[in-house]
């Protein structure tokens, strides 16, 4: 059975005060109606309606025929006269099953009502009785819930005796602990809310608050749970009657019919199967209805569908990367496209990125959130998963083609596993909580270099030491939750160095850390790069960080590289208005603190709707009609610096204070 404790979304003070409870119930009913209009809901509602209808009209229409004794047909199989056969007294099983609906359903509903009432009383006790008595009540509930309901039912069946009265009480009280648990959870959730606090300040008594303010607010989840519970009660009752502890002849419900039918299962299987199937269907009717409504009211899980259509053909509108410091680069990327599934179909947030990274070179990739920088990094590391998709004219790592093999070939996994290290943004979630650090690090050696755990461990300790983790032997034995945030990121960096990396891709490695730790981690990256001659691709939204750590900076905007220049020239020779705006948005020590912080007006472009012209035009002070119509290509000026702007390097208009105070976000 599904526990459903979804309290409604924030209920404001004004809502109860203005006395709109009636309207809210109507809204609640509307949601039930809405839930039951889905295909599954329709099936559930129809089934439930049918069961209830049968319960009402069954005995009226067929009561006599069900009791009619046909001495000529004792214990017969199915025939044209008796569709499902007859029982040992020659009574028609089909009609008996139909007529038994009323008693079965009525008893289940009665038991549920008893269970809910007793449960609510018990569950609200902590609220009414105050702390000490309340804790005792909660403890009692917890003990009772630990035992399966059927055992409680058997227990109560002993006390109340065999028969309908005892069985109803037994099933009802057997369910009570469950509803008590649900109620106390719900009450605890609601009693912390503002409107209850307000009612208490006004001086209302606890009982009054419970009746007037709390119960109405937990009514809906309780009713949903009761609907689910009625299905359970129906099954429990059938079980009791089947055992001979519930309904006694000459009355009969489905459970008793099943009991009688089972004895004659060889002669007339229908006698046992028909009530069995009916019990399942009726139970299902209640359960399905409850679950459909529960889903609608409580668990609104956004189900993002993952379908994608072919990517538009790549447009080679970028100049090939030039000015490589090394003739054989570690990484070469040409016209990279990444397509992922958005809320409204596939989008291509990375559209035609080209760059190269030389041996030992540190390249920074900067841009606002949504510029496509992280997807570019993941694509380079071959970590985009289906249904996401990577296309490129060329994607070579260490001279090995990655785009056409997609890591399927055997050697590729080993190459990437040992030569390409990845450091992720959040070390808290990026390390496996159930594995010791040493084991997580050692895996690479074990898998790709075919060494035993002993050697793998030794290497892990060595790399932890290289990443300046104190007491690495002891640390390798620990779990990630025993590490601090900065230490975890050091462990991640150590993990990236387990093989013999030629390139470390670091995706915002310091964003999740606090400021002092950020510097240490950046310094570590720099030192490692110098010591091991390893290239670094550093993704960051912080242009100053990238400027300090990297040799070269790639500025991304709306899925494209818009400027590529040495970081030493960042302050002096940046030509793209976006780069210049990013730099201007960095507050310096000399910034006038009386003036508002400089920001880039406007918002980043939605990857689902790229404009035809320059994507930055809407936020650019230099933009003209040509910019809005024709997208500028990334062009090389001959010295290795690249820029994609029709007005590259033109002086920016003086920004007045009023202009700079506007909507938008600094990055």
């Amino acid at each position, binding site marked *: 059975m599904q526990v459903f404790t979804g309290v409604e979304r924030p209920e404001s003070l004004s809502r109860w005060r203005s006395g709109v409870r009636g309207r809210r119930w109507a809204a609640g009913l509307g949601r039930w109606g809405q839930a039951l209009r889905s295909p599954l809901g329709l099936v559930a509602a129809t089934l439930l309606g049918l069961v209830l209808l049968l319960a009402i009209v069954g005995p009226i229409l067929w009561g006599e025929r069900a009791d009619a004794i046909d001495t000529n047909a004792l214990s017969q199989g199915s025939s044209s006269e008796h569709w499902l056969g007859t029982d040992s007294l020659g009574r028609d099983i089909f009609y008996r099953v139909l007529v038994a609906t009323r008693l079965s359903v009525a008893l289940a509903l009665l038991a549920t009502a008893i269970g809910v009432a007793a449960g609510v009383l018990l569950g609200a006790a902590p609220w009414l009785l105050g702390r000490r008595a309340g804790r005792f009540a909660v403890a009692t509930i917890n003990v009772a819930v630990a035992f399966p309901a059927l055992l409680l039912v058997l227990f109560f069946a002993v006390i109340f005796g065999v028969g309908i009265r005892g069985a109803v009480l037994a099933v009802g009280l057997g369910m009570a602990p469950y509803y008590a648990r649900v109620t106390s959870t719900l009450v605890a959730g609601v009693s912390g809310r503002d409107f209850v606090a307000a009612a208490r300040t006004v001086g209302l008594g606890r009982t009054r608050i419970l009746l007037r303010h709390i119960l109405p607010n937990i009514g809906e989840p309780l009713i949903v749970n009761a609907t689910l519970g009625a299905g359970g009660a129906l099954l429990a009752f059938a079980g009791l009657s*089947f055992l001979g502890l519930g309904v006694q002849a000459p009355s009969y419900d489905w459970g008793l019919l099943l009991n009688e039918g089972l004895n004659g299962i060889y002669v007339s299987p229908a006698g046992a199967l028909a009530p069995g199937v009916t019990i399942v269907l009726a139970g299902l009717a209640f359960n399905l209805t409850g679950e459909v409504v529960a889903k609608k009211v409580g668990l609104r899980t956004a189900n993002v569908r*993952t379908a994608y259509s072919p990517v538009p053909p790549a447009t080679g509108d970028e100049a090939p990367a030039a000015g490589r410091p090394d003739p054989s680069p570690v990484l070469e990327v040409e016209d990279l496209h990444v397509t992922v599934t958005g809320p409204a179909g596939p989008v291509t947030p990375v559209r035609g990125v080209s760059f190269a990274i030389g041996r030992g070179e540190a390249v920074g990739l900067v841009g606002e959130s949504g510029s496509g920088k992280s997807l570019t990094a993941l694509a380079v590391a071959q970590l985009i998963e289906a249904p996401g998709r990577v296309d490129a004219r060329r994607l070579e790592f260490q001279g090995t083609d990655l785009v056409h093999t997609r890591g399927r070939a055997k050697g590729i996994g080993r190459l990437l596993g040992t030569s390409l290290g990845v450091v*992720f943004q959040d070390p808290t979630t990026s390390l496996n909580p159930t*594995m010791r650090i040493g084991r997580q690090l050692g895996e690479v050696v074990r898998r790709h270099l075919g060494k035993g755990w002993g050697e793998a461990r030794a290497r892990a300790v060595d790399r932890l030491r290289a990443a300046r983790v104190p007491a690495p032997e002891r640390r390798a034995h620990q779990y990630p939750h025993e590490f601090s945030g900065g230490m975890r990121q050091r462990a991640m960096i150590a993990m990236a160095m387990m093989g013999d990396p030629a390139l470390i891709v670091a995706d915002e490695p310091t964003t999740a850390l606090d400021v002092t730790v950020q510097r240490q981690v950046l310094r570590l990256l720099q030192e490692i790069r110098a010591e091991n001659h390893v290239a670094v691709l550093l993704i960051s939204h912080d242009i100053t960080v990238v400027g300090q750590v990297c040799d070269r900076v790639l500025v991304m905007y709306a899925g494209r590289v818009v400027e590529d220049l040495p970081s030493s020239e960042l302050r002096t020779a940046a030509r793209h208005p976006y780069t210049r705006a990013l730099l201007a948005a960095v507050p310096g020590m000399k910034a006038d603190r009386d003036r508002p912080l400089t920001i880039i007006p406007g918002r980043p472009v939605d990857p689902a709707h790229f404009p035809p012209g320059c994507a930055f035009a809407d936020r650019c002070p230099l933009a003209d009609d040509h910019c809005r119509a024709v997208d500028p290509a990334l062009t090389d000026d001959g010295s290795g610096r690249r820029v994609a702007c029709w007005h590259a390097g033109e002086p920016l208009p003086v920004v007045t204070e009023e202009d700079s105070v506007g909507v938008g976000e600094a990055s």
Partner: protein
Amino acid sequence: MTTATATPSALRGAVESPWVGFVLRRLRRLLVSLWVLVTAAFFMIHLIPGDPVRASLGATAPQELVEARREALGLNDPLWQQYTDYLRNLLTGDWGSSMTTDVAVSQIIADRLPATVEIAAYAFVVIMLVALPVGVLMAALTRGGRGRRTELAFTSSSVVVAAIPDFLLAVGLVYTFGVSLGWVPVAGKSTVESYILPVLALALGPMAVLARIVRVEMLTVLDADYIRTARAKRLPARWIYLRHALPNAITTTLTVGGLLLGGLVAGTVLVENVLAWPGLGSTIVSSILSKDYPVVQGIVLVYGVGVLVINLVVDVALALLDPRSAIRES
């Protein structure tokens, strides 16, 4: 959840040895539950309206016999003395004797318990052996919107199977494999084949529930950042599923598994009665019907203790697998 108000020294103590606190908490809970159980079993007889002995022996039994039986059961003593006697007798192994056959309750339990434990244990093993691999496999096959049809078939079939209560499953199985096909005995405990129906009837429902939970849990875990880290290490898919994902999905799986195991105890009562399995379940029902209260009392105790022990084992296993869960709970 009182970490906010914990004193520094208490905090330090908890950090130094979270296990001591964990074990103490668990023991306390077990003892409280045991006491509630025993007390409830004791009061069961006293809560029965009227004279339980008269009800048991029937309206026609001579008054002297009723009186003698009341005396023998100690029902004429003051309540508190009965209670202490009851506790003492429980501890010394004297659980009373049947009012109808005079056989010692402990003897009845010793005769009947093994059959029940057998089918429950086999059912649990079958559930785990099937549900874990199926759940993991389904997660792998239906990840990221793939295998839409497989998902639909799996989800709908598991929902239907889980919706059928075990005693009705037993009836269906009896009809299909016993009556129609004649492959296995319909009732009773005899050959190895006779175990098939009770074990299947107990296992099918929980199996479906657990496989669904394993799948959902695996899908969540597979989206976690540390799985991306594992992929960045280019480990083979099987390695990632079994060593990185499964241990993280096992906590919930085991919690639910423990609940299912507790539920199995209840399931045996009904299934045993459908299949005439000579275990505790068929005994307790016949004892309730014949108002043989000492036997009912004894068996209720056995069931209760069984559930408590299962809960304890699950908690300890969870704490060993995921050390954080033991600490977090304080």
